[in-house]
């Protein structure tokens, strides 16, 4: 990262920007295990956090790292971890603990081509469903996907804020292109990001109940080790944190952790639209693929095709609202993703057959080229 202080124009890498966003949002604890293409985030945090009184720990693996950020968060820290697919797989069990025990934390996954070790230095968008359903059991998740370096700053800060607001783990889905890309950005001024403060109980409050237990809101979260003593467990628990098998209490708990996020799906939706006003063919995409789709929309317009782009920044919870609003004017929806069909299933669910939906996937470890998407759209229109 470097640039001119006077003009605030910096040439910054996506991973660096993610770290800058985290620090701007008050992240003061990072545990992790380095992995390509995410290692620059750990590198930055290792250098930077000690300078501002934070803590960086390189753990023995990603399982322990995920446990560490959960523990730090319980004690009141704003905590974050960064990894790629193989590490994200290892974190899934503890991610479920954070969902059930309602512990805020941010997990950055810079996606590379999988499965398994796959292609460490090549991009993919293959972890979209893993972010949603990688940990077992019914739960909800928030996941955001930036497409520019500036958005890496903004959305990382947003992840921190949402995790605190909803007391839940939040996933930032980058891909290798966005994580490693350097782009000129005008860095926002210090204090540009307002982070939702964790709801805290007062020290004097009697009968403190640390968990949701089905209430529509998010209960205050006392710092572990403070005046309020409470129990934290991965067993399904009641409002006080003690294990329960009472059907009504179990049902309340599970619906509670899902509803607090899923019922807010439309409020949490962040989109960017390009030429959607009069579009008949809608490209629906996210992350680096959406940048290519945007270039393709411009070319298609030049060729007289009424194309538009809906780029989602909020992947989960998925909001179908905008798609349903646009559906009546559309002849088709085309979904380019660097996978063989993941978020497209949500698009199909949202429009429920009202518009034909076609997926366009690429899984050879390379980003789409604009002509590929353009040609695919032209063929679709012709058929």
């Amino acid at each position, binding site marked *: 990262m*470097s*640039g*001119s202080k006077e*003009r605030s*124009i*910096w*040439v910054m890498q996506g991973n660096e920007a993610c770290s800058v966003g985290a620090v701007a949002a008050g992240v003061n604890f990072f545990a992790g295990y380095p992995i*390509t293409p995410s290692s620059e985030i750990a590198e930055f945090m290792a250098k930077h956090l000690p300078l501002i009184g934070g803590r960086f720990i390189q753990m023995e693996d990603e399982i322990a790292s995920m446990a560490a950020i959960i523990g730090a968060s319980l004690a009141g820290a704003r905590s974050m971890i960064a990894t790629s697919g193989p590490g994200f797989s290892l974190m899934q069990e503890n991610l479920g603990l954070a969902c059930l025990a309602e512990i805020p934390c941010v997990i950055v996954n810079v996606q590379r081509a999988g499965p398994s070790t796959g*292609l*460490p*230095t*090549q991009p993919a968008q293959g972890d979209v469903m893993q972010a949603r359903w990688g940990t077992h059991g019914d739960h909800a998740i928030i996941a955001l996907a930036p497409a520019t370096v500036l958005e890496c700053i903004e959305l990382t800060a947003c992840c921190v804020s949402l995790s605190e607001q909803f007391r839940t783990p939040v996933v930032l889905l980058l891909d290798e*292109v966005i994580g*490693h*890309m*350097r*782009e*000129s950005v005008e860095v926002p001024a210090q204090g540009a990001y307002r982070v939702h403060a964790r709801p805290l109980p007062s020290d004097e409050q009697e009968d403190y109940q640390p968990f949701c237990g089905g209430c529509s809101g998010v209960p205050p979260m006392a710092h572990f080790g403070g005046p309020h003593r409470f129990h934290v467990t991965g067993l399904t628990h009641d409002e006080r944190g003690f294990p329960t098998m009472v059907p009504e209490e179990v049902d309340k708990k599970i619906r509670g952790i899902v509803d607090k996020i899923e019922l807010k799906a439309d409020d949490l939706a962040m989109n960017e639209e390009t030429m959607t006003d009069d579009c008949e063919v809608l490209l629906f995409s996210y992350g*680096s693929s959406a*940048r*290519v789709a*945007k*270039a393709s929309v*411009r070319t298609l317009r030049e060729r007289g095709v009424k194309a538009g782009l809906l780029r989602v920044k909020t992947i989960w919870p998925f909001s179908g609202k905008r798609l349903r609003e646009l559906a009546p004017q559309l002849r088709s929806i085309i979904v380019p993703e660097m996978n063989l069909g993941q978020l497209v299933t949500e698009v199909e669910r949202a429009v429920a057959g009202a518009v034909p939906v076609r997926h366009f996937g690429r899984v050879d470890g390379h*980003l789409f*080229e*604009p*002509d590929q998407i353009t040609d695919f759209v032209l063929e679709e229109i012709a058929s």
Partner: protein
Amino acid sequence: MTKSSGRFEIRLSGSGGQGLMLAGKLLAEAASVYGGKNTVQTQSYGPEARGGKSKTDIVISTDDIDYPKATSVDVLVAMTQVSADEYRHSLKEDGLFVVDSYLVDRPGRDSVIGIPFTLLAIEQCGRALFANVVALGAIVELSKVVEWDSLEKTVLARVPSGTEEANKKALAVGREAARRAVGEVS
């Protein structure tokens, strides 16, 4: 920049360890921080720590840059034979093709400028690792993609302290070699 449309694409290719990523980063910074243009730099390399194919694309534009990689390359630098073979087809017909003639025997294209970057780095700068900065000096002289002053400022601001003079010299060596090479061609 001579191109009429806003977009200018540079591809630096070679082998891991030649310093191409750093060269790309410096060029992007020179264009944005000092030149006021939008830039995007992407990279591509294998899982090896050293060696293996390595490539970086720098897209410079006065407009927003959507597609972040190069598709129709204006300036291609090849620092190995393998990279010359792989990427020369990505170059535009009237694009500028520059190879390290110390390491590339067969550029595979009639219109090419050969400069022995690595040899110049060894002989005139004392170490092969200056080859990337020598190459930067040459391609900026040949393409005028950024102002010379912007390049020099960027390089001096970014290199480890104590190496400023050596890097400044490497830039000048590249510029001089480029001038000579063009003289020979024309």
